[in-house]
């Protein structure tokens, strides 16, 4: 059996809160054409509607301070 390579894409968003704390939200299979404006629009909705709270003191959500598209490649080696 030959080696098998699998690739998985994730979007890693770091949410920042007003107490300075942050939290990472990861979603699978981000769109190839995703833009900063689209991500910021999600952040704006979360902020304006008070969706997310900080996990330490329940602080308000401020913004996504970073966004990364990460392609994870895993190679499964055939050990036979």
């Amino acid at each position: 059996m030959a080696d098998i390579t699998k690739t998985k894409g994730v979007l890693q968003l770091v949410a920042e809160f007003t107490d300075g704390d942050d939290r990472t939200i990861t979603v699978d299979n981000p769109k190839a054409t995703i833009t900063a404006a689209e991500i910021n629009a999600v952040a704006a909705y979360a902020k304006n509607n008070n969706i997310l709270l900080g996990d330490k003191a329940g602080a308000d959500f401020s913004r996504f301070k970073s966004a990364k598209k990460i392609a994870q490649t895993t190679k499964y080696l055939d050990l036979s």
Partner: protein
Amino acid sequence: MADQKIILTSTNPGGQTLQKTLTDINPDATNAQLKTFGQKLNALTNNTYGKTDRIIKYNCDTEAGGGSQTPTLQLISPFLNDGPIPTNTNFNADGKRYVNTLQIQYDGDGQIIFETIGGNATMCYAVEGSFDPSTHRANFAFYLNATVSGQYVHFKIYATETENFKAVEAGTYQFVAINI
């Protein structure tokens, strides 16, 4: 304080079901707001949006006992009005909390409210998992704080859109699910 989270369910391009849990959700956010947020977050991906479930769990300050007596599953069918939890559920009398699970059948959308209106014990409850729209059922775990056998809690269950449960047609539960 209630700990709330949402579970975003979607399907990836390969047909696999994905579930993403987001914790520390604002308890004051409405179901509609949480659903919209789930949809917007999913729109950043190639996954097909399925649903957003809201999970509410009330923190009990002691662990549920398990002991040697396990209360039985109580299916609320037909509706028990605002009567007491049946005393044949074998709640023990050692000061511990015991878990009972009530399965509630419902129909529609919205939110289910538990309201304690009397009795000589206290309770808290948690939604187990999420509401299942395909079976119209939800499980609530009850944590009853009893110190003497026979203690009970009077409680009323109603939906936010139909406050008086007695107004519900016999045999139906027009409780509404917190499944959004």
